[in-house]
């Protein structure tokens, strides 16, 4: 590394600023230098940029490892997906897919904030209906308004005899129990929900899905309503992964793409997540993986989200 000429007087105040230990003396010394010299201002901007870039790099690298970072990531994902497919089709054994996240600096959310989780629009209010209606196989003309139903887009699942759903089927309100494999539904106008077995979901209407247990990935290009642990929330233009335990202990929601706005104006950005406990307590956290890795993990079937208390 070249011995580039640097203003040695800038070094300590800058470092103190970056690690949060700058006192008034350091801060004033930094300000003084910044106001005097354009090259110092450029160094200052460079140091801040690289500081955040390195923070981001190492937070990802920590999870995957330095060497062959990208290839290892891709390879790991392929192995993971291949392994999951084999397990899904040839065995009913389940590998525990744990997603590690770190406790967030963002204070825990209040219940009312969570209820107001929204993007552009608040949830429309749907009536809570029963789930007794029978599966209706779609034939042209068989359903008065087929556009309002939930359509199965893709499936690699094995369901109980007599309850098998196939691509192109359109269903109304229904409980779906998916022991293995995957099933994708179109919900609303452009949203896609992928359920990874073992999972149980309840389809309330063409835009509302209750996730009872298992891993579900939601790509909401328009508004999609979710019911998690008895709470209703609406997401819009945002992709989220949800892991519900099924035993009522906790439910996790992580934003993988887009921004979800909270009622008080705060945002959940990509990698931000929230845990809802059975008692209704809410805890915010941040995923260590980036959006792409989260997307892959959810589609591979995350069964557990573990919050690491310390970053170190």
């Amino acid at each position, binding site marked *: 590394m*070249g011995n580039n000429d640097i203003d040695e007087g800038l070094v300590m105040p800058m470092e103190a600023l970056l690690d949060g230990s700058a006192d008034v003396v350091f801060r004033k010394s930094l300000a003084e230098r910044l106001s005097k010299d354009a090259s110092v201002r450029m*160094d200052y901007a460079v140091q801040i940029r690289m500081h955040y870039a390195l923070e981001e790099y190492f937070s990802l690298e920590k999870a995957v490892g330095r060497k062959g970072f990208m290839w290892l990531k891709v390879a790991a994902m392929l192995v993971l997906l291949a392994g999951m497919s084999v397990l899904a089709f040839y065995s009913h054994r389940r590998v525990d897919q744990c997603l590690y996240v770190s406790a967030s600096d963002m204070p825990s959310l209040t219940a009312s904030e969570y209820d107001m989780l929204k993007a552009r629009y608040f949830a429309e209010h749907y009536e809570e209906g029963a789930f007794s209606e029978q599966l209706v196989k779609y034939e042209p003309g068989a359903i008065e308004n087929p556009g309002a139903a939930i359509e199965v887009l893709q499936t690699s699942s094995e369901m109980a005899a007599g309850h098998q759903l196939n691509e192109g089927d359109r269903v109304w309100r229904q409980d779906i129990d998916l022991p293995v494999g995957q099933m994708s539904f179109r919900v609303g106008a452009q949203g896609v929900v992928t359920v990874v077995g073992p999972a149980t979901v309840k389809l309330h209407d063409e835009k509302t899905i209750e996730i009872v247990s298992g891993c579900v990935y939601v790509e909401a290009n328009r508004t999609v309503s979710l019911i998690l642990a008895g709470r209703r929330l609406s997401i819009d233009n945002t992709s989220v992964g949800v892991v519900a335990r099924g035993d009522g202990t906790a439910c996790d929601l992580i934003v993988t793409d887009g921004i979800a706005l909270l009622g008080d104006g705060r945002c959940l950005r990509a990698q931000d997540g929230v845990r809802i406990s059975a008692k209704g307590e809410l805890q915010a956290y941040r995923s260590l993986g980036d959006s792409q890795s989260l997307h892959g993990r959810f589609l591979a079937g995350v069964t557990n989200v573990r919050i690491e208390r310390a970053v170190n």
Partner: protein
Amino acid sequence: MEKDVTFISQLTKAQFELKVYIAALACDLQDVDDILQETNVYIWRKADTYDPSRPFLPWAKALAKYQVLRWRKDLKRDRLVLDDTAIELLADDALSEVDHDVQMLALRRSLRQLTDDEFKLLKSKYVARKRIPELAREFHVSEGAIASRLFRIRKFLHTSISEMLKMLRRQDGEQ
């Protein structure tokens, strides 16, 4: 609807640049995440005033600057260090125009040029999150020397990334 999708995508992509910009203006890294959150909300509320024919980032930065100035107004005087004139003078880094994923890819490549010791120092700083006094003890040098090393490493990485991107642009131009 299509506009919303594009807008959210631009806002999401701009998060890193906005964070860097806010931190530089605020000259205080403690409140950066809070200001960024407020900026996101403000940008969202002002979405209708955005002209899609113009670049998104300069528009978003103007709104971020307003949030920083609002934050400064609420702050105790003893935490304020940069005056408004100094804020005006802060220059934009050329890298702010470059796609963030490309920057990160170039950073990965540049990190390979560091010595093992330099990389170890970065890991102690950014993975173990050690502060300067702890780093000085670990590497058996003075605090000033450690701070200087970190400063130089970051500067070197920035230069290396900038050169790498210039070279890529030249290659693109030749093809």
